[in-house]
């Protein structure tokens, strides 16, 4: 009798499963993240995805033409790493067919393609995760993400240091053996990690008044250009705006990691200008930076930063005598210049005004062709919401940038491929093993996404035991 009951129950379950209504749709599947039509590197981790609607079952067939894998899950799919790698190994493109069962109806959606690029991507991305807040902060940290394994590692969390702020991580051409980040607050400084040696550097001097802020490593790894800024915040009351961050004054200085000197230059410390966001060119012979007229700072919406450049001699550490305006922004403010490592392009963030575009919905990415001088809005990457910080991979074939396109507040890292012609592929959200749960639940933003070419070898102990040091000011004429 008991066996009969079990058989009957199983038959009912099987019948129930097999009689689910099936439909087909010519629409693309409602999945998160949106991977339809994106280009991914051959060494990327599995692009797991979830149904973007309430689902009972999600099934996917991923094919590269010669082989295919089938995966299924309750709310999304978790693609086995080994099978995914085998699939990607000799693929030019993947075809993904997705069926979503919701309310007892299984809908088979139109398949979509994922292009597979032979241009491999760097080991990972380093970023800060922090609440997109105002003046105070809670737990935050610098983390790095293994793009081939979908695994996050901690570089530092501020719980190690009481309540410090950690920010502005930077690498010499994606090399984690030459890197730095700032620790603000009690016991803070700039943690300089150079070839296995860790120094906690005090970069504040009597002459510069404040510590170094926004960094850019020279491609050869000897120099770091910094801005020094007196940063303020203001809070808006009109619903479409929340806050602005701006400078009272700012200059650019260059730190020499070999001599320990912090070089100041009259031409980059012009009291008649604000200079900020320094960035070296690929050959290290030009220093780009953003510059604004302080007179306009009386009224924040009038502040426009231009993109400027000055020559730099890596042998002597001297800068040129003449500043060139690369682009005045055509009535907008230009920020975060970042040159591709092949020397071909310069990417900037362009916003209506000011110096902190992350709070500006209109902020977009623009590309300047350094060979032809042409410039354009990168429409392939931009959205209706904020696009802000960006960095290039060591091969200059990939960019990672921060965008608020998902919910308008929490910044997320997106990755895109760039081809020989300077065309960008449709960007994709940095993969995650459990993307919907993670990104939906995370109330922190991703700040300053920077590619890294290898794992970062710094432990909490290294940070605590870093030798204290100080810069020596050198006023260049």
């Amino acid at each position, binding site marked *: 009798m008991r066996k009969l009951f079990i058989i009957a129950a199983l038959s009912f379950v099987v019948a129930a499963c097999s009689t689910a209504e099936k439909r087909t749709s010519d629409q693309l599947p409602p999945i998160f993240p949106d991977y339809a039509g994106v280009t991914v590197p051959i060494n990327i981790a599995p692009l797991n995805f979830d149904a973007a609607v309430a689902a009972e079952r999600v099934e996917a067939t991923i094919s590269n033409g010669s082989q295919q894998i089938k995966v299924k899950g309750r709310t999304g799919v978790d693609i086995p790493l080994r099978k995914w790698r085998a699939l990607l190994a000799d693929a030019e493109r993947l075809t993904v067919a997705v069926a979503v069962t919701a309310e007892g109806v299984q809908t088979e959606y139109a398949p979509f393609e994922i292009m597979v690029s032979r241009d491999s991507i760097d080991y990972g991305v380093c970023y800060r995760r922090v609440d997109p807040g105002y003046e105070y902060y809670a*737990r935050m940290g610098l983390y790095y993400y293994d793009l081939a394994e979908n695994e996050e590692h901690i570089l530092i969390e501020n719980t190690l240091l009481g309540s410090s702020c950690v920010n502005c991580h930077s690498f010499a051409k994606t090399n984690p053996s030459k890197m730095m980040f700032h620790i603000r607050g009690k016991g803070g400084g700039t943690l300089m990690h150079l070839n296995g040696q860790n120094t906690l550097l005090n970069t504040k001097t009597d002459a510069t008044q404040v510590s170094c802020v926004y960094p850019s490593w020279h491609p050869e790894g000897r120099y770091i250009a910094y801005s020094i800024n007196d940063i303020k915040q203001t809070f808006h009351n009109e619903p479409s705006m929340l806050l602005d961050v701006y400078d009272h004054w700012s200059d650019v200085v260059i730190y020499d990691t070999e001599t320990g000197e912090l070089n100041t230059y009259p031409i980059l410390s012009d009291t008649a200008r604000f200079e900020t966001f320094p960035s070296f060119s690929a050959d290290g012979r030009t220093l780009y930076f953003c510059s604004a007229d302080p007179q306009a700072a009386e009224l924040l919406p009038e502040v426009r930063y231009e993109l400027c450049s000055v020559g730099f001699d890596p042998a002597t550490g001297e800068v040129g005598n003449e500043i060139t305006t690369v682009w005045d922004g055509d009535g907008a403010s230009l920020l975060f210049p970042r040159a591709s490592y092949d020397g071909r392009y310069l990417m900037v963030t362009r916003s209506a005004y000011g110096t902190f575009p992350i709070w500006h919905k209109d902020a977009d990415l623009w590309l300047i062709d350094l060979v032809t001088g042409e410039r354009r809005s990168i429409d392939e990457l931009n959205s209706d919401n904020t696009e802000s910080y960006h960095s290039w991979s060591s091969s200059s074939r990939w960019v990672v940038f921060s965008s608020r396109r998902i919910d308008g507040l929490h910044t997320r890292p997106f990755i895109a491929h760039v081809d020989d012609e300077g065309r960008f592929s449709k960007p994709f959200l940095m993969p995650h093993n459990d993307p919907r749960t993670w990104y939906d639940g995370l109330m922190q933003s991703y700040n300053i996404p920077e590619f890294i070419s290898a794992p970062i070898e710094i432990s909490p102990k290294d940070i605590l035991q870093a030798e204290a040091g100080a810069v020596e000011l050198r006023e260049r004429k």
Partner: protein
Amino acid sequence: MKQVDKYARLVLPALMAVAAWLFFGVFYRWHLLYFEGNHLFLWTADYARETICHLGGLGDYVMRFLIQFYHLPLLGGVIVALLLLALQQGVQRVMQLSTQSNALWPLSYVPSIIYWAILCDENFTPVGLLAMVAAIWTAVGIARLKNSWLRSAITFVGLIALWLAVGGGAVVAWVAVVVIELATKRDWRALTATVLAAVVVAVMWLSRPWHLSDAMMVTGGIYFRHFDIELGAFYKLWGATSAVIVLTPLVSRWVREWINVVAAVAVVATAVAVLPKHYDANGEDTMAYYCLTRNGQWNEVIERARKHDPQTRPAMICLNLSLVMTGQSGEQLFDFPQYGPAGLFMTYGEDLIFCGEVLFNLGFINEAQRYAYEMMVTYSYLQRSAFTITRLAETNMIAGRDQVARKYLNALRHTLFYRSWAENLLELMDTPKAIDEHRLYGKLRRNQPVKNFAFFSEKFDKMLEEMVDQRPKNREAYEYLMAFYLLYKDVDSFAERLIIPTKGLPRAYEEAFAMICRINHVNPATLPSNLNRATFDRLERYIHAYNMSGNNPEVMSKDWGRSYWFYTNFIRF
């Protein structure tokens, strides 16, 4: 004496449990509500993983689970009482095991009484209490194991696991295990296991696998609500507990029943003497004001103030906001002892959560959001809070930032007590125009500024002026501004903004207006007929009384303490 000792041993635990329940569940109920509101427990696997995966994380997770029931203070009181009782019973059991008697059993109440006092400060979480309960009962469990090898293995693994699960409170388990072992079995294997476990913990500590400061390595960072951990209280607590456990077997042979009875009397007397001193009456009152204000129970706030004057600035702010929200500010502002504009607002950072209520209800939605956000990140660095997440959902929804609002509401759907609230709001957002037509949210949306201006908390009167200029129909902002002028004694600005309605002016406004007229030698007969002439007559009587009293506030306060004139003449700020 033996019988007294026996009955005391039976009665005292129940007495302590009931007393703790009454203390926390009834007399500290606003503390429990406030505490719960500043925590958020999500019923999701991700939340569990994130919470548990740090030093002391399991204890943190279990306690967060329990804290959500503080939402019902009587139940919250039961939880705290049971934890205190469990600690006492555990310590008593350890003492019994180590002495094979009931010698000095009243001292087993010492750790619970200390933690009771600690919990009176809302900055301390009950996680440390849970950690001690787990530690002490782990030691009791280990002592029950007869097999030497098994006991040694469990001691080694159990102590390390305990430290990982609950943090530094586990130190009590080490002490208890060693004391019981030395007092009873004296098994070298088990003792070696405690030493090896301590070595493993020390190695883990020194190798720093976690990103935790030294202080956070002690407590896991979870016994105190934010970064600046107060370790002193824990050292005293663990020291006292260890002293009780260590000393009892050393002196037990000389202890007689009468000593136990004397000790019991001493412990009860100490508890009765000490605990009331830790009872934070002002804090309880202030938290009551906050919780009532937060729920929009304006009349309850005013009623509370009528029974007992607000004792703190945040409480005063809640009262004045309630008067404004119920439209009674103009009439009753000086029915309560005002002490200046400080009772309306504070400068930024002083008390974010209270000022956030003012900003929200007056239509400064962006600022209310900022205050809520700052409160969220400063109250606790490891977790979100129900108060702030609900507020952030509201501010984003009112301001039209729907996607962000949905993110917060979706998180709240995974809670026990805020789920239905979140689902109602999500439904509201799915219905076109429903927010515009909503009684509260619609009004707040209409009351928001239309043109941008920078906010400065230290110039709150200017912010209110800007708001009133932009939104003349924002009654609450107008009344708050008028209250600000009155409390600041800025009668010129008051007169400039004063609108005389056809039904006349409320009492406080009219008193101020009469005073202005008299200063400016305006004949009351020339004023509009809807003004109450009796007020002008009262002013004359006040001036007469003032002159007669010789500028004596005590004499004047009897008849005139509830007038604006008295406030103007006698209240300094």
